[in-house]
């Protein structure tokens, strides 16, 4: 564990050094390659006046809502698919149809149907998250060794008990990796939706922040927004997902 953080810090510093050296060397003009000092100043300036904090909060809350709704829906759909082969056919077809569609391609339709409010962004997030989650969950359910289901039959577990005691725990590694993918994809969906729709309420989120910095030609500000996204990504990966894995699949000996 510790060496992982050490490595991360080490590589972080190396990358930052290379970045700064490139910026200082003047190979690229300052306008297209700002130094870390400029980027950090821009970041602190935005943090100081409070708007960036609110925008981060807004983005995170939209993502949390989208992920929650998508996870519930994905669980229901893939469980139905597991127990009924008719439903499985339908859900399989739906996934095959919708999974390759980028949310951005649906944007014009979503604009017409749901307007450009928060609902629209939620729909884009759910769309980009739901299908990979279903795929992962179904794979997880179907790759449970037969012996487990046979044990369930032996113990005469009913469907509900089977679900809670065997199906979900046994497919948890797939579920967690599905969640990781969902988390990353929800960010992509959110940022692109925000940059396309513009401010969706008085605030807007991080995507709007980056867009605003872009139209006002503030490249350090654009990078500041990107850095915030990276930091949030690392924090969630290291603190939430890793803890979740340590407490479940690692403890149970399903994952190294």
């Amino acid at each position, binding site marked *: 564990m510790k060496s992982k953080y050490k490595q991360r810090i*080490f590589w972080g510093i*190396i990358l930052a050094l*290379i970045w700064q050296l*490139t910026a200082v060397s003047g*190979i*690229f*003009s*300052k*306008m*297209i390659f700002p130094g870390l000092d400029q980027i950090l100043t821009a970041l602190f300036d935005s943090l100081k006046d409070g708007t960036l904090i609110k925008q981060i909060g807004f983005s995170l809350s939209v993502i949390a809502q989208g992920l929650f709704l998508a996870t519930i829906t994905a669980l229901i759909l893939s469980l139905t698919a597991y127990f009924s082969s008719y439903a499985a056919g339908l859900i399989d077809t739906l996934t095959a149809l919708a999974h390759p569609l980028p949310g951005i391609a649906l944007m014009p339709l979503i604009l017409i149907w749901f*307007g*450009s409010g928060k609902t629209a962004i939620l729909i884009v997030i759910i769309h980009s998250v739901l299908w990979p989650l279903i795929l992962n969950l179904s794979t997880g359910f179907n790759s449970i060794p037969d012996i487990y289901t046979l044990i369930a039959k032996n113990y005469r577990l009913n469907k509900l008990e089977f679900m809670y005691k065997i199906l979900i725990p046994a497919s948890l590694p797939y579920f967690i990796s599905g969640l990781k993918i969902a988390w990353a994809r929800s960010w992509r969906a959110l940022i692109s939706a925000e940059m396309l*729709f*513009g*401010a969706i309420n*008085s605030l807007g989120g991080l995507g709007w922040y980056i*867009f*605003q910095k*872009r*139209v*006002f*030609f*503030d490249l350090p500000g654009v990078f500041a927004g990107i850095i915030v996204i990276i930091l949030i990504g690392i924090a969630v990966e290291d603190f939430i997902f890793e803890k979740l894995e340590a407490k479940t699949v690692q403890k149970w000996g399903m994952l190294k």
Partner: protein
Amino acid sequence: MKKYLTIIIVLILTLLLVSGCENNEAGRQQKITIAEQYGLAYAPVQLIKELKFLEEANPNLEVEWKQLSNTTSIRESMLAGEVDIAFMAIPPFLIARDKGMEWKIISGLSESPLGLMTNRGDINSLADFKADAKIALPQPGSIQHILLSMAAEREFGEVDRFDEQLLTMSHPDAMNALLAGREVSAHFASAPYLFLESKEEGIKKILSGREAFGGDFTFIIGVSTEEFYEQQPKNYAYFLNALEKAIEFIDGQPEEIAEILADNYNLSQTEMLEYLNWPGMTFTSEIKGLNKFIDFMAAESYLEANNYQYSELVFEKNLAGSENISKEEAVQNEE
């Protein structure tokens, strides 16, 4: 440690390789890349393209026209060295100049009516806008946004009064939304969208660009990078001549122009002529209102500096005339 060192060396080498490629772009001397945008105010540029003024002046010159959807992406491609000449409103030019982009104005291109159009019966002036009424405009920092801020500053003393109800939309999308009566309550439109909207029932203008600015101003200017100006003076001169010719042509023979450009704008010839002759639609190389934009934008901290010399903003070889003329105009505008 050895492993790390190798990886670092590989990274640095890749970086050098990439930067090395950038410099290999020779032989651009005979090529000129111009960014075009859709809109009536860009008619002289369309004319240069349609009648091949540049190719006529120098048959060896390769002219590339790039269609880009908004000012921001034009600015970014100019920064990347992909576009030599572009056309836009004064505020987006000033914002990038202020941030250190090395470019200047070649010429004025057109003055054009702009208008804040609403589809709501209960809105008759800016004061009637409630917080839930959305106003569509191309993007923050665009001329429409600055004009709206100017009007808000004058009427209410709050420059950012409407900033929280803006929706970023392209003109065609905004017009559709306005006509459908959904999502947006108002659209800060330019020509020809302004003209199309003003013909629709139930849509009215509550603020004109002229009222917002408090005088006449140049809507679109031509800009180029200093790099292009210095390294390809001949091509720059060709372009300057072509532009002068196009502006003169469009001013003198609107009927003929309407015939040439109608297809280009997907309009009938009569419509095209009507729009070209619309009151307030003027094609001229003069630049009006530059100082007033600078003063306002600096005072409201859209710009950091406000002490620009005329020669820092406009190329020495230009169509707009010398500094004195522009100063006199600035005085007239103040009045």
